[in-house]
């Protein structure tokens, strides 16, 4: 537990030191928003309807960038091997890394949601925005756990930029689907009280991914790293 906190604070400190890099992740998310507004045309109505999907896609695309980065640090001077030698529990390593990634993506939430409100002229109040950000965070958590697991593997590969999205995207479909639906309900109103169900589904998948990926991480990185 103490090593988990030590690793997490290390990751966050490094993230802060390399602000420019975290910022590029944010920039990427913002560019995604812009691109979609070009793609879907100037029709405000269309943009509003597409907002949940666009938000989740922005999250998904920026997450691969962040995940690839997060293990580049560990591979640069083979620091991961040093951690394994110390020896640090790989389970602690996973949860620290996944939490750091989830936190980084979480911080994007308020900014991206606020920008979406401006770009897509959404007329929503602060409470709705907060709920959107909350859903963004749950989605981010659902991406971070399997993302960290797969990034640990693909970070060893030359083709990691292609490999990670290829493997990760289909995997997180349930999380994406639940996030999009829940965001849509938050935005357009929840006439039939479905929000709770989608939220439960999202939470359940967060839990499943965090526990299963935590168990598997030790096999994704091991000795010889």
């Amino acid at each position, binding site marked *: 537990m103490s090593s988990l906190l030590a690793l997490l604070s290390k990751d966050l400190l490094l993230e802060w030191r390399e602000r420019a890099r975290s910022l590029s992740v944010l920039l990427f998310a913002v560019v995604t928003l812009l691109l979609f507004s070009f793609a879907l045309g100037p029709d405000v109505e269309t943009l509003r309807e597409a907002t949940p999907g666009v938000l989740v896609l922005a999250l998904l695309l920026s997450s691969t960038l962040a995940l690839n980065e997060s293990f580049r640090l560990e591979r640069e001077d083979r620091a991961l091997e040093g951690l394994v030698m110390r020896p640090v529990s790989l389970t602690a390593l996973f949860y620290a890394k996944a939490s750091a990634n989830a936190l980084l993506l979480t911080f994007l939430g308020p900014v991206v949601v606020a920008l979406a409100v401006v770009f897509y002229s959404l007329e929503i109040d602060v409470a709705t925005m907060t709920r959107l950000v909350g859903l963004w965070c749950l989605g981010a958590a659902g991406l971070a756990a399997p993302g960290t697991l797969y990034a640990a593997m693909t970070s060893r*590969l030359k083709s990691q930029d292609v*490999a990670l999205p290829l493997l990760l995207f289909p995997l997180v479909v349930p999380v994406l689907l639940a996030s999009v639906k829940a965001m849509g309900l938050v935005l357009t109103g929840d006439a039939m009280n479905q929000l709770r169900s989608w939220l439960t589904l999202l939470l359940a998948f967060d839990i499943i991914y965090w526990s299963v990926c935590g168990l598997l991480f030790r096999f*994704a990185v091991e000795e010889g790293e």
Partner: protein
Amino acid sequence: MNIRKLLVLAGLGLAAVGTYFGLFVAPPERHMGDVQRIMYVHVPSAWIAMLLYTLAFGFAIALLWSGRQKWDDLMVGAIEVGVVLNALLLVQGSLWGRATWGVWWDWDVRLTTSLVMAILFAGVLVLRRMAPNEERRSQWSAVATVVAFIDVPLVYFCVRWWRSLHQIQSSPDTVDPAMVLPLRLNSFGLLFLALAWMLWRAAIERSSRRASEVPLPTRVAIEESAHA
């Protein structure tokens, strides 16, 4: 006579009888007519594909637990055959869907999760090709298989969870007795064929692994003597 040949013979026999019954003996469905006969391959494909994925999941757990490479051979066999059946499943479903629902494809949960299932397990095979060495390869495939397997119960349950276009699972109670027989025969036939195929694939994997384990000078000597 080894077990694989036995399985193939039994599988071909059962499938032949099942197909005969399915095409010529079983009655056409009340509303769908002859199109419904695609069920006799569609449903077995789904069952056996999911069964193979479940086996692959079991092999993956065994591999991670014991670290023995032999599980990797079986795992890759199960996944490859599973992906092929899964692809067939999607094609058959698409044909059937066009005839009965009126569309080739729909982003219905059952269809979506089945497609995702195919992509996930195909992804495991892609990951295998990328792995830097043999030990990594087997461990990574096992990890990816376990994670991909999360989708399999989802495929099964989703028709109950959502109101989907795809009907929920049928049971002997909901199917005409005359249709159950060819369905059963074909299912067992396909099961035996798929198992044989999986074992064959595993044997190939094992041989190629052994071949790569032979030290290089010996290998050269063998190759030279083969050419001589």
